[in-house]
């Protein structure tokens, strides 16, 4: 009997040991890959004090870069949210020939390097591109200008809303919506009052990822924009140039600002979500 309890104790100790090991690996992994770089940026960005931060933000090219990044993000979020919801509804609810293909295509931007996306845009809209005469005739500059920068960013950000919302819709099923119809709700009322509240957390996550992706995009935007200082230079492109020109301090400050924005956004959503689920009991 003594022997049994001893081996039981040994087993328990072994289980505890395993747990501790797993936990330390997980924490270490997160710390090394996420926290260390973040800490590094914070340290270097603020090393010279707040005066340098203020100085950086007073520079007109930095301001313009943030302004461009904001515009691109807002347009991208609006477009990928609106069409993302529609595509998600179609993928989750409808059956049609080629549905698998569409579903796979939606993931394409995740699989293709942004640089290639940029090159494709240049092929289409650049000199001699298929769509170039159309826009040139109307005096619209697409390549090396904001339109192409928004376009490639949208392309790259397409999957996030769709990928977050489709599983939520599938899990939800159609019954609540059909119940709303039988109660007299129009399609729009049903979407606004039944579907949207049910998918809101998935949707918000998708939007947050989409926003984070759009402010962080470099490769595609670099190729289509030409990265003209003060004109087609986004915040990330500014960071690249600042590094090249040995203005590391400014680069760190801008990088920290972008990173903070994403982090605050994700924490904000997490907080809202937690509060909402507490309300719902």
């Amino acid at each position, binding site marked *: 009997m003594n022997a049994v309890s001893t081996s039981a104790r040994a087993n328990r100790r072994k289980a505890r040991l395993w747990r501790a090991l797993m936990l330390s690996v997980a924490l270490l992994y997160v710390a090394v890959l996420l926290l260390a770089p973040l800490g590094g940026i914070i340290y270097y960005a603020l090393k010279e004090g707040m005066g340098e931060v203020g100085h950086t933000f007073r520079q007109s090219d930095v301001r313009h870069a943030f302004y461009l990044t904001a515009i691109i993000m807002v347009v991208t979020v609006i477009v990928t949210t609106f069409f993302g919801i529609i595509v998600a509804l179609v993928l989750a609810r409808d059956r049609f020939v080629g549905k698998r293909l569409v579903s796979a295509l939606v993931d394409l931007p995740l699989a293709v390097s942004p640089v290639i996306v940029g090159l494709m845009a240049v092929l289409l809209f650049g000199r001699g591109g298929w769509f170039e005469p159309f826009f040139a005739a109307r005096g619209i500059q697409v390549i090396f200008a904001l339109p192409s920068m928004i376009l490639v960013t949208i392309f790259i950000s397409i999957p996030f809303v769709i990928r977050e919302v489709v599983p939520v819709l599938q899990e939800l099923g159609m019954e609540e919506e059909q*119940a709303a*119809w039988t*109660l*007299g709700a129009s399609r729009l009322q049903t979407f606004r009052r039944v579907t949207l*509240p*049910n998918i809101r957390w998935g949707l918000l996550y998708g939007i947050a990822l989409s926003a984070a992706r759009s402010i962080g995009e470099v490769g595609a935007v670099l190729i289509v924009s030409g990265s003209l200082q003060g004109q087609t230079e986004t915040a990330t492109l500014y960071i690249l140039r600042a590094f090249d020109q040995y203005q590391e301090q400014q680069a760190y400050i801008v990088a920290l600002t972008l990173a903070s924005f994403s982090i605050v956004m994700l924490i904000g959503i997490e907080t809202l979500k937690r509060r909402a689920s507490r309300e719902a009991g």
Partner: protein
Amino acid sequence: MAGSIQVRGLTKSFGAFRAVDDVTFEAAEGTITALLGPSGSGKSTVLRMIAGLEQPDAGSVWVAGEELTEASVQDRRLGFVFQHYALFRHMTVRKNVAFGLSVRRVDKGTQRERVDELLELVGLAPFGDRYPDQLSGGQRQRVALARALAPRPQVLLLDEPFGALDARVRQELRAWLDHLHRELGVTSLFVTHDQEEALELANEIVVMNHGRVEQVGPADAIYNQPATPFVAAFVGASNVLRGTVWERHVHFGHSIVAGAHEIPDGAEAIAYIRPHDIEITNEAGATSFPVAVERRTDMGWMSKLHLRLEDGQPLVAQLPNEEIVGVEAGQRLFANLRNPKVFAADRADVESVTVPGAIVAPAETQTEAQAEAQV
């Protein structure tokens, strides 16, 4: 506030599968009608076509004398109760019940009154501020019912309303729905695979199988005068005996039952006999014949007797204990089979269990629903 429901020639296919095939029946104003059938018989599809959630390939739907076949779901103004409640999970009970009023822009004061009234009616007045996931299954179903009733629909459609509940709650809710219907008088049509539920609740039962209507009638007609072998086998437990017809009687060995009208001599026939329609006697009578008692299972106030006919076909009788005092396994007694329902064997539905001697026990549907409730 009530209207009749008529469906005429409703037909619907899903791909090559004909789910509903030329279904016609009427549910009279103010009655409860049951659509009864096994799973896959098309009964839910009929209900969904009446509601407008599914479009028929052919046929028409009429409510209160008005054709609704082409009308949108929203315009039909029918109450619909889903098997899995389909409550809006992000809304409180009050908001759920008020939904049908608020989308029609009924003013807030009227909404509040109507919601109070309905919550009172379904006995959930103290639960108005709860969310659906804070309620039990039975409570959720009552919220679903209150929600469907709030806009004062002309008719109420219920899709397996008790299917996802456990047996005891189901009994309670059944009695309660019966009471509610008496109070409100709203024409109700419900889908069920549970024959007991249909027999108990419905004024009229529409029995469906393979997308077709097998029989329409009140409970006693369905039970006592089944129009088809399927109805005989599906509604209520039955013994299935196979024999040959001579002069309007079915013969199995030396045993005979009457009732084989319109079946030619020499044809194979199947007689369906209820377990409680068997009389056991000690002596031979004019219509009785010998049986061997193989087993007796006492079930409280009554017993199950496993009998065997002379030609080897088994037979199960269920009789009150006072009628079979002293009957034991091993005895040779006499049985008198009352109310046999006889059909020509070639009419028998292959898929309903018509193996000679098998006893069909539709009570198994209950376990199916229970298994579902556990998911």
